[in-house]
């Protein structure tokens, strides 16, 4: 067993356990904080898959930005003193059946498909290459998504401000 495989098994267990806590915790704040570990574990997977830059982005944007945003959101909207009210679940039967059946379908598809695989994956620095790609082949999506981000920011501020005017 190689070292990367060991790391993989560790991250697998780590991510699935923390994700379960996020999913099933009855305290909203716990979920929000545990999500940080899930995202961290994902960054680990990315490193294993040769995506050093993506892993850094994952940590900085997701764990550092989005997750903090979610924690703020939880704190601003929820009654933290009453966690049992703030994070109840419902539609149990529907959830169970749809979740299980869809996962079964996914697993079956993954198993049955015959993937064309490389002899061996490559792990080498990708930042420079990604930079070139983003500014050459993917320049249009890159610009579009920049604009989308700007629009999203302006839009969310606008939504909140309008409510305040009323």
């Amino acid at each position: 067993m190689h070292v990367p495989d060991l790391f993989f098994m560790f991250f697998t267990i780590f991510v699935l356990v923390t994700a379960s806590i996020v999913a099933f915790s009855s305290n909203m704040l716990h979920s929000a904080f545990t999500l940080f570990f899930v995202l961290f574990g994902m960054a680990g997977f990315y490193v294993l898959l040769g995506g050093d830059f993506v892993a850094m982005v994952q940590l900085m944007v997701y764990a550092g930005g989005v997750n903090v945003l979610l924690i703020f959101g939880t704190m601003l909207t929820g009654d933290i003193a009453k966690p049992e009210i703030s994070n109840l679940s419902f539609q149990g039967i529907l959830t169970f059946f749809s979740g299980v059946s869809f996962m079964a379908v996914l697993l079956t598809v993954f198993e049955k498909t015959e993937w064309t695989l490389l002899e061996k994956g490559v792990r080498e620095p990708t930042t420079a290459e990604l930079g070139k790609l983003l500014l050459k082949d993917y320049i249009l999506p890159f610009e579009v998504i920049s604009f989308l981000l700007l629009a999203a920011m302006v839009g969310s501020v606008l939504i909140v401000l309008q409510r305040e005017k009323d």
Partner: protein
Amino acid sequence: MGLSAYLMVSAGLFALGMIMFISKKNTIGILMGVELVLNSAALNFMAFSYFTPSKGNQLDGQIFAIFIILLAAAEAVVALGIAIAAYKEYNHVQADELISLKG
């Protein structure tokens, strides 16, 4: 570890995300479920990028992962904005009670 191992992890993550999405009463919880689903998709892209040959650049999958992360950021911003606006309107963010679409 091979491709299918990663795919199974991502499938598990996806299922957990969907479960959150469907069952959580809190809007922020639903948002977290969406983040899990998005992460599982990004993991798939990364895995395929690493394990399978690409017709274009080998790093295309990683580019898509980056885009997913950026989209998630945008989505989180907008969704939280809506959640806060809803909180100001109704004083709660319980999804099972935000049902003005009920027929």
